[in-house]
């Protein structure tokens, strides 16, 4: 009897304790690996003119914002002719169904007001299928002269909110503007917006100039000048190009291929003396310099890692031109490129994960990227002559120079996504080479 009673109690306990609660069904577990890669369609109705006379400015800003986004290759603008409705006002309700119907996944609305020489731009970004605003609306105010920068700022925010990484539209590029035939080409240091607008010349044609490089803060530029007959490294201030300084070198020495350190206080460059080229580092404040390599090989094109702890450079110490990484204070370098062909002009990504380079192989030039250990090499372009890669501030896009074949060949600037997609020519008034992408402007 006692045994049965205990068994009954045990049965009740099991029934109470083991019965699962409601909703105890395990969730369906799936793994999604296959998607699509396509440009995200977005709608950008022309920004509204809140003040009479602002219509043209509103249209221009809208156009630049759209061009920035579509220029990345990640976005596709839906033509206004497909719109079912347009916002009644900047703060008016959004008919999301109308935008869903035309498959607009993002909607950018904005308004522009021009008062004298002051312009105000405000915008909102909507996730159409979620029916919600992505982030808060923002407003930029400035002068009419800087309207393109405000448009770039808007595009940067839109880009950042959708992709999750910083934009690069409000940035500038310094490059060598080239005019004339190949055998008598005039070269000047020039600066422009990232998209080729607002080109300004910083030097004249009295001397051949090469390889301009932005300082990390975007205020100074290093470049190589042959004004004295020998290559010398000059430093100029972007806002005051006439006030230049020159890096000290001994007579007969040739200094070239300079690049700023990440803090802007030091310069690494190549110095050729007696037929030997090595890499040096100079402190711009104290003038002290340090020799970082000492081999009979030609070693040049140094580039700091983002944290300033390492330097990548090219060297033919192995018999062919390859890429090496060494400590920022010198030391034994480690070779990272082992593929066929010749590697040169390495540039460390701002994010530190990749190194862009120029590769020459089988009579073709390529722009490629590899990881800092030399793995996962990918060639992004191929042409008669591609060279001189430079990174966008967000490390997503590379700009480089491409020269066409023949006596009449010209050099132009191109950009390509690090995935190898979206190869585009950067429109400049003249030919261009040796680009150096500056930081995002404050």
């Amino acid at each position, binding site marked *: 009897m006692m045994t049965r009673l205990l068994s009954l109690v045990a049965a009740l306990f099991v029934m109470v304790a083991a019965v699962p609660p409601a909703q105890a*069904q395990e969730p369906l577990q799936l793994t999604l690996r296959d*998607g*699509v890669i396509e440009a995200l369609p977005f709608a950008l109705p022309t920004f509204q003119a809140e003040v009479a006379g602002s219509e043209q400015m509103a249209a221009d800003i809208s156009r630049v914002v759209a061009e920035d986004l579509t220029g990345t290759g990640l976005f596709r603008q839906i033509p206004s002719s497909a719109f079912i409705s347009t916002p009644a006002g900047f703060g008016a309700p959004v008919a999301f*169904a109308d935008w869903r119907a035309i498959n607009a996944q993002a909607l950018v609305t904005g308004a522009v007001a021009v008062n004298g020489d002051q312009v105000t731009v*405000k915008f909102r970004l909507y996730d159409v299928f979620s029916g919600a605003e992505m982030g808060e*609306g923002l407003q930029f105010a400035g002068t009419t002269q800087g309207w393109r920068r405000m448009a770039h700022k808007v595009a940067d925010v839109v880009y950042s909110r959708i992709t999750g990484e910083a934009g690069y539209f409000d940035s500038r590029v310094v490059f060598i503007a080239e005019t004339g035939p190949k055998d008598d080409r005039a070269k000047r240091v020039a600066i422009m917006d990232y998209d080729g607008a607002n080109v300004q*010349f910083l030097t004249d044609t009295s001397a051949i100039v090469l390889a301009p490089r932005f300082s990390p803060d975007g205020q100074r530029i290093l470049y190589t000048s042959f004004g004295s007959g020998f290559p010398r490294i000059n430093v100029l201030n972007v806002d005051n190009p006439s006030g230049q300084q020159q890096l000290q070198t001994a007579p007969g020495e040739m200094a070239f291929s300079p690049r700023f350190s990440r803090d802007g206080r030091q310069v690494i460059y190549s110095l050729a003396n007696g037929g030997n080229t090595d890499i040096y580092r100079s402190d711009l404040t104290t003038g002290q310099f340090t020799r970082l390599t000492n081999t009979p090989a030609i070693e040049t094109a140094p580039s700091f890692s983002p944290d300033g702890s390492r330097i990548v450079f090219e060297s033919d110490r192995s018999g062919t031109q390859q890429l090496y990484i060494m400590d920022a204070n010198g030391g034994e370098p480690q070779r990272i490129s082992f593929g066929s062909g010749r590697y040169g002009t390495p540039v460390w990504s701002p994010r530190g994960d990749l190194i862009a380079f120029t590769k020459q192989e089988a009579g073709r030039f390529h722009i490629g990227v590899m990881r800092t250990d030399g793995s996962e090499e990918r060639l992004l372009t191929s042409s008669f002559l591609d060279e001189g890669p430079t990174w966008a501030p967000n490390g997503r896009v590379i700009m480089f120079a491409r020269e066409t074949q023949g006596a009449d060949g010209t050099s132009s600037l191109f950009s390509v996504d690090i995935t190898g997609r979206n190869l585009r020519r950067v429109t400049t008034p003249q030919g261009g080479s040796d680009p150096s992408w500056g930081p995002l402007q404050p």
Partner: protein
Amino acid sequence: MSVGTYFSVTGHAALVVWMVVGWGMSAEPLPFEVTEVSVVTGEEFAALTQGVQPDAPAGAVPELETPQIEDPAPVVPTPEVEAPPTPAQQPDVIAPPAAETPPEAPDLTVPDTVVTDTPPDVPDTPTIIAPPPSAEVGTSVRPVPRPAPRVAPEIVAPPNPDATVAPEVTEAATDQVEAPDPEPVEPADETTAPEAAADQIVTEAEEPAFAPEISSRPQTRPSRPAPAVDAPADDVDPVAAAVAEAASQATEPTPPTPATEPTPGLGGGELSEGDKAGFLRQIGNCWNTGTLSTGAQNTIIVMAFAMTPEGRPVTDSISLDSFTGGSAADAEAAFQTARRALIRCTDEGYDLPRDQYSLWQRVELTVDPTAMRQR
């Protein structure tokens, strides 16, 4: 017997009789009064008598130490009170005008910020650059950076409250664009099909030749072998049998109660691989990894969401559970992209077996874009 003895015996007998018959029969208890008393300590009593409060318990002492509360400065350090100079530390962040303007006034006016983004003031014509200093010139003095051009963003006030209430607009547009909901399918009569529903006449006596006997859907799992039927034992303990039955019932999943119409099936088992693949394919068709940042492309996220019986995800239930391989910002970007895909491709509801709703009522989706990165 003497007279004295006689009176003594009589008296004692009368006493005994009275005690047994009279007093002993009375069972009712004597009435008594109950008075509640409380025990007080000597200190309390003394306090009561002297009009003085007794000492409070030790634990209450700090509570009575009010004078310390009046101690001014040390408690609230002044620097921390003035810490909110956040706006000064983050000059770029400007308070949204919405907080300063009434909500019905979407026209936002904020102080203008001058943009000093003028490009280098260099004419288009070549500028003669002063020749560089002589070779003996030492290392250049670091130029003093000029004030950086700045375009300060300002947060625009949120849209007019009406903007969030747009059901009329939405529904009106929806009516124009979206296809009408399909008519509910009437369950086919199993006994006599309508004439228009079949291309041959079938009587009740015969089975239609084309009638499928099994579902065309892939079988979820091999059929279980028929359990061996044991001969009923006469000596089975009924209590032990009850225990076993309770245990077996407890381990079986309890089908959840369906939430809305149409009433979903409660089929158990396992979702077929075909159903899973189809579900993933539908999501994948809308999962655009092209706009993912490179960091997000290396981030694997796990998101969870609930589904309606109609096969649509419950938007509010979509959540990011965990992630690996990237930063929180990367994970958020990857999550938002996957979330958009999930919502965007759900117009008709995902093609999932409605009779197995309990199996996909809740979904845990691992989103791995690393393979897409290489494409």
